[in-house]
């Protein structure tokens, strides 16, 4: 792993005042710009060692899948607004807490059916907050989405439903699911609140169908629930043959420019594109839309003809970058491949050169891969994704050469190697180098911080007849099989491991990096977290796969959970060195909320776990604060 010392002198960038004044945490990524920067001053590398766990709260909304309920995946970022901490839960409840004590102020139950309609687990990534600026009931609101596509609006002070919103406080978003509606919408990610507009994407079923609901972005009036506009991302003529390209993750907005930046996912079916060989320019893109009208202003497609399920996984982060004496309003879009695309957020023009490079071509029947794909020359990619890790000697040894044999047997010709009947290794895997956690940026100096996973996966396209024979006509995600129904191929997808379950590829399995956005230079990249298998921890140099993202503070500290080892950590932002950690019940797979309440700085993690990392799940929220003198 390349390590570069933090430069002594940094070019100071023009920080947006609003970003640098971040004391609250009013949305999934903290602010509309998704910088994940907290203006808290007291939390420094020298002080965080004294952090104390000041309270712990159990939502009670947790299931490990062993009983009647599906397992829960709780990736919520707590929202701090209105002097209150709001949690959304995977049982689709809202809980309002006193930030200082963790005492419950109120709770609201959506009474949503706890059924895994589109996902294998009950999932929630939190709530959204809006206020009108006026006094009175429901002038401050909390919004919660559900698995069955209801959007609930409740009063932020009392938890009572807001009767003037849609149908008595509940909006049925599935009413707009009327094309290729093979599955219902699910509202797992809270809407983005941009002024008085709620911007809403939805989640569907991955890997199941060829023809699926076409992705779109819905704009909803925050007060009435009225649909303001609806913009789709699949060309009309292709809708009978494909679908999705939806927005399942968080979004970003620039109210000054009047733009929302939508990370658009891949089209269906995810791993075979023979029925969608025509261009779908808005799929796997970051797309800017006019908040007022829904008109598409610009779009940047970072993968063409995506057959790797490399959805754009996270909200882009806004930052201003100096160029030739001018300050350029920019955004940074992290991708599942670990690339960072830095674009002028007014136009979508790249701010660093992007090369078109020849990529491996598919020999699968019906598939037509594109000859080139875009590769950013700068900034440095996260986790060295262009180099497939070597076979891990330890894993190879204990499996008597299984890993080496498979490396020879499976197809890998570099990034963008297509899925194949032979079996393809792909790196980074489908969960990505980065995912919904995205990146954090210190707007004062333009330094970007990001965790990245380094997971190699194996995928095989299975001809339909063989697939149905293996899966008795059906098939599900649990064992790695997924049908891609009505396409010629089902898939088998799994991590590349030996018979003992030990990864076949060389560590590190996860890294943490800092990048100077003015130059694109990698400042450091260090192993992050500890992998854990059957309770046994790996060595620190091995790092850990991660889900969730970092927060950087004005005091020079990065807070992050995300790792397999169920630790929440503080890192010295200058070096990536761990300066504090605490053991929690499961991996904290979201983003911590870092805010100032009544003059004191708090760090709050929602600890939910995710079976992608390990089986443990939890309903724990924990808050940390420096000791009072």
């Amino acid at each position: 792993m390349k390590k570069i010392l933090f430069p002594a002198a940094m070019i100071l960038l023009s920080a947006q005042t609003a970003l640098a004044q971040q004391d609250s945490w009013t949305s999934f990524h903290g602010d509309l710009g998704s910088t994940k920067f907290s203006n808290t001053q007291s939390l420094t590398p020298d002080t965080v060692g004294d952090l104390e766990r000041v309270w712990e709260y159990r939502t009670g909304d947790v299931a490990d899948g062993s009983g009647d309920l599906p397992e829960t995946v709780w990736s919520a970022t707590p929202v701090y607004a209105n002097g209150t901490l709001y949690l959304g839960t995977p049982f689709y409840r809202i809980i309002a807490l006193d930030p200082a004590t963790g005492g419950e102020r109120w709770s609201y139950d959506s009474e949503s059916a706890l059924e895994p309609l589109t996902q294998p687990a009950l999932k929630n990534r939190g709530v959204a907050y809006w206020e009108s600026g006026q006094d009175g009931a429901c002038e401050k609101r909390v919004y919660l989405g559900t698995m069955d596509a209801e959007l609930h609006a409740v009063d932020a002070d009392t938890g009572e439903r807001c009767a003037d919103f849609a149908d008595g406080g509940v909006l049925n978003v599935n009413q707009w699911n009327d094309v290729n509606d093979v599955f219902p919408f699910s509202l797992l990610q809270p809407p983005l609140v941009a002024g008085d507009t709620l911007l809403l994407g939805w989640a569907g079923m991955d890997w199941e169908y060829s023809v699926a609901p076409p992705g779109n972005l819905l704009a909803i009036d925050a007060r009435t629930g009225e649909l303001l506009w609806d913009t789709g991302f699949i060309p009309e003529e292709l809708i009978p043959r494909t679908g999705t390209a939806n927005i399942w993750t968080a979004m970003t907005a620039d109210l000054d420019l009047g733009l929302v930046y939508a990370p658009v996912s891949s089209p269906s079916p995810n791993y075979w594109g023979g029925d969608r060989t025509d261009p779908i320019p808005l799929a796997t893109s970051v797309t800017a839309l006019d908040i007022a009208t829904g008109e598409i202003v610009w779009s940047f497609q970072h993968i063409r003809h995506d057959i790797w399920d490399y959805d754009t996984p996270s909200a882009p982060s806004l930052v201003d970058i100096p160029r030739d004496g001018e300050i350029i309003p920019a955004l940074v879009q992290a991708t599942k491949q670990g690339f960072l695309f830095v674009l002028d957020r007014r136009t979508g023009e790249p701010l660093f050169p992007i090369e078109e490079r020849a990529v491996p071509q598919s020999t699968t029947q019906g598939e037509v891969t594109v000859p080139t794909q875009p590769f950013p020359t700068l900034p440095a990619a996260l986790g060295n994704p262009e180099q497939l890790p070597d076979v891990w000697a330890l894993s190879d040894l204990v499996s008597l050469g299984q890993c080496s044999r498979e490396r020879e047997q499976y197809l890998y010709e570099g990034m963008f190697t297509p899925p194949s009947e032979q079996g393809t290794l792909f790196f980074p895997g489908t969960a990505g180098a980065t995912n919904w956690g995205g990146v954090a940026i210190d707007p004062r100096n333009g330094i970007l911080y990001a965790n990245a996973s380094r997971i190699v996966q194996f995928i095989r396209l299975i001809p339909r007849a063989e697939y149905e024979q293996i899966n008795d006509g059906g098939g599900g995600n649990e064992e790695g099989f997924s049908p891609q129904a009505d396409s010629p191929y089902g898939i088998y997808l799994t991590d590349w491991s030996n018979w003992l379950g030990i990864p076949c590829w060389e560590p590190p399995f996860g890294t943490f990096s800092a990048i100077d956005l003015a130059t694109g230079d990698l400042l450091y990249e260090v192993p992050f977290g500890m992998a854990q298998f059957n309770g046994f921890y790996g060595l620190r140099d091995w790092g850990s796969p991660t889900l969730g993202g970092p927060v950087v503070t004005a005091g020079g500290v990065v807070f992050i959970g995300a790792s397999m080892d169920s630790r929440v950590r503080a890192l010295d932002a200058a070096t990536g060195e761990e300066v504090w950690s605490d053991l929690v019940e499961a991996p904290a797979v979201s983003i911590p909320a870092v805010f100032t309440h009544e003059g004191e700085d708090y760090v709050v993690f929602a600890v939910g776990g995710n079976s992608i990392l390990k089986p443990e799940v939890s309903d724990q929220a924990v808050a940390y604060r420096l000791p009072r003198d």
Partner: protein
Amino acid sequence: MDRIFFPALLLSVIGAILGLIAFFGPFGNTGVDGTVGAGLALLGSVTITLIVIIVMIWQPLGGWRLTLCALAMFAAFLTAIAAFFLMQYMLAFAMALAFFVLIPLMINGRRHP
């Protein structure tokens, strides 16, 4: 009862208690509670305790004593390694101490007819 084994017994009982705590987490999350690894560490520490008790009560000499002590040492070694990678450092320390305490007892046993 062969009292010379009391230190080993004490360490192995402490190890078994720490193994129980690691596996069941009665005082809170240990980071490994309920895992296969913690189960193996618990099994190892309990095995050492049982072997030491057997040796103390039965007081075997010669080959039996040597074999049982060697088994207990082997279990202590593996459990210490396991506990280290489970980040249960007190358990690892107890098992490492038990390993070293058992060495002279095994050597001592070889001198009996």
